[in-house]
């Protein structure tokens, strides 16, 4: 919390600098003395892990950009040049490609933790929205990054996603042409995607600064959802949180390294090792795994424009969450019913991801034919995604507002330290 600064400059230089630019004070107040609730669990380590991910992506990306050629004729070969001829180029590229997936694993855990413990509730709405902006920028960055190797999935993914804008009435086609910089996905598109792919991570870094600033104004939420009331409830960030975050980061890096060194292509698609060919459409265009739930929502709606709106609406719901949830209690630890709906939501998201990877008309249970409704058999992935989509929106638009009004939460503790320190208050 942005309270009184306890920083005392120790050396002459620090005293001199502190009067002119109190940057050491800022660092001290933010990352050393900053009080963190003492009961944070490991779900709270993903903020630090995410900043590590951003750092890895930016550093590996800057070096990759030194060897990459953003043109339709040379992009694929330049990526393979990186893989084969650049010293440790394979390491950089696998780090960067798998790093994107690791980034999304971490951000999804971070977001779901926020939902579970009510971290978006007052006074943390702006903090939450800044997080959503980061997530949106991440999605744009990841999408454009996936286009850069100029393989078949890059090209066709770019074609499908940019074509979504053509669903908008009147201006749709003009917007699509403007995005492409031509009349098809081609060199102009690739080149601008490269430019933006380089720009957006720095915008992410900027919003991260705002996100951390907002966090340090309102203070961290914690598993009880009760704000710290006294010194007994908190511990200084350093060394308590730094060492815990460091340990979690190191574990996360182990997972990351297993992917980079032993299964670097597990999260990719084989078709992206085929050079882009506008004349050959792959039999099955799928986005990267982290977009699959939204892809399933898009395809669940039979109308193209409505599908696009539903997909963007799914993200808009996350933005609106602070005002959709009416509960007075933050943490779901004390909301047994909310917990249940949350876990069903989690399953619905995974099911949506599962559906996004399948052809819509494939059967969920092989060999079973049932009623055909809205042009599709009920035993199909498109119907499974329709049900899950309904739950996705139902969770945000019905469960969240209504549950808070009708549920009976469990009693919440007075202070953080009362459950933590076994009730002996040290106020």
């Amino acid at each position: 919390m942005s309270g009184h600064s306890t920083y005392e400059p120790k050396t002459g230089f620090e005293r001199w600098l502190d009067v002119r630019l109190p940057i050491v004070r800022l660092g001290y107040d933010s990352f050393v003395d900053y009080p963190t609730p003492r009961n944070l669990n490991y779900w709270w380590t993903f903020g630090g892990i995410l900043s590590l991910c951003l750092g890895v992506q930016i550093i590996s990306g800057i070096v990759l950009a030194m060897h990459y050629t953003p043109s339709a004729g040379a992009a694929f070969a330049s990526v393979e040049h990186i893989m084969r001829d650049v010293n440790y180029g394979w390491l950089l590229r696998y780090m960067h490609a798998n790093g994107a997936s690791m980034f999304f694993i971490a951000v999804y855990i971070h977001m779901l933790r926020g939902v579970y413990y009510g971290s978006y509730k007052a006074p943390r709405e702006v903090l939450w929205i800044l997080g959503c902006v980061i997530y949106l920028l991440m999605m744009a960055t990841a999408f454009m990054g996936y286009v850069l190797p100029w393989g078949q999935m890059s090209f066709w993914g770019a074609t499908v996603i940019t074509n979504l804008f053509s669903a908008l009435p009147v201006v749709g086609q003009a917007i699509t042409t403007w995005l492409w910089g031509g009349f098809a996905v081609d060199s102009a598109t690739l080149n601008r995607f490269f430019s933006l792919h380089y720009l957006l991570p720095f915008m992410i870094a900027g919003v991260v600064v705002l996100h951390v600033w907002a966090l340090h104004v309102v203070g961290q939420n914690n598993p009880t959802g009760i704000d710290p009331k006294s010194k007994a409830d908190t511990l200084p960030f350093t060394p308590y949180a730094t060492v815990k975050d460091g340990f979690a980061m190191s574990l996360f890096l182990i997972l990351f390294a297993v992917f980079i060194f032993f299964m670097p292509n597990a999260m990719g698609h084989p078709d992206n090792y085929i050079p882009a060919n506008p004349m050959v459409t792959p039999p099955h265009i799928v986005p990267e795994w982290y977009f699959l739930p939204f892809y399933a929502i898009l395809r669940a709606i039979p109308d193209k424009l409505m599908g696009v709106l539903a997909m963007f609406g799914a993200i808009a719901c996350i933005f609106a969450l602070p005002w959709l949830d009416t509960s007075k209690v933050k943490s779901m630890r004390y909301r047994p019913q909310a917990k249940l709906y949350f876990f069903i939501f989690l399953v619905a998201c995974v099911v949506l991801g599962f559906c996004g990877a399948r052809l819509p008309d494939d059967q969920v249970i092989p060999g079973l034919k049932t009623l055909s409704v809205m042009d599709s058999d009920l035993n199909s992935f498109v119907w499974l995604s329709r049900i899950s989509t309904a739950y996705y929106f139902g969770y945000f638009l019905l469960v969240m507002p209504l549950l808070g009004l009708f549920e009976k939460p469990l009693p919440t503790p007075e202070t953080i330290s009362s459950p933590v320190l076994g009730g002996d208050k040290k106020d």
Partner: protein
Amino acid sequence: MLRKVTLFAVALALVAGPALASGKVREPHPVAFSFEGPFGRFDQAQLQRGYKVYREVCASCHSMNLVAFRNLGDKGGPFFDPKYPNPNDNPVVKALAADSQIRDIDGETGDAIQRPGIPADNFPAPFPNDPASRASNGGVLPPDLSMMAKAREGGPEYIASLLTGFVTPPAGLTVGPGQHYNPWFPGDVSSAWSGDHAHVPEGGFIAMAPPLAPDKVEFDDGTKSTVRQQAQDVAAFLMWTAEPKMEERKQMGFSVLIFLVLFSGLLYASYRRVWRNESH
């Protein structure tokens, strides 16, 4: 509860992975390749045999644009010799390069010429351009093989299965001219199938005729040259061309993992020590 559901979600996500495959196609035969698993390495003798199959059979139709002769002598490559850390000095690599004719431009006259290859040259393509390649191959472009083992579902096992998988088409399946039935080749044969439409044969039609035959390639190390052997050897070679840095990658992976595990242990000990007097 949270833990159980998370585990369930992770398990579901893992099941969703293989779902990316589409179409009805036969699963590749499992092959115990030497390079599989975290400790797997390429078998140099197999890579050499695979190179021979590629050079004598595949290379007459397929290009391999991303691989240079010098790569053959790189660490982990088929003709790596520790005596020649610079593959450009490796006499085997030099000889193999010189066996090929490279299209070039005469620096003095500007005429198109052919000259013997040097280690720095990439493998020459069998045709000067794609239309020429199509014209000589029944209108179908034989794909570049550099990345084949990574660009197909199933990788090297798929390649080995496909190359040995030219079976007699089932009765009721009309195979068009210039086409060959292969149950491992992704495709859809339902329009050529006159039998029960609930049981359309797996696989598809491929324009490539069965390329391998017993003793078609003579192996210098005396290995019996069966179709199966040739197919597996060339599949291993194609895995190497697609992922030439695999051995270096796995080796570094072990150092990194050992470091990270020790480092995590150290951090955990620090964490316990820092928090020893604090309840949480």
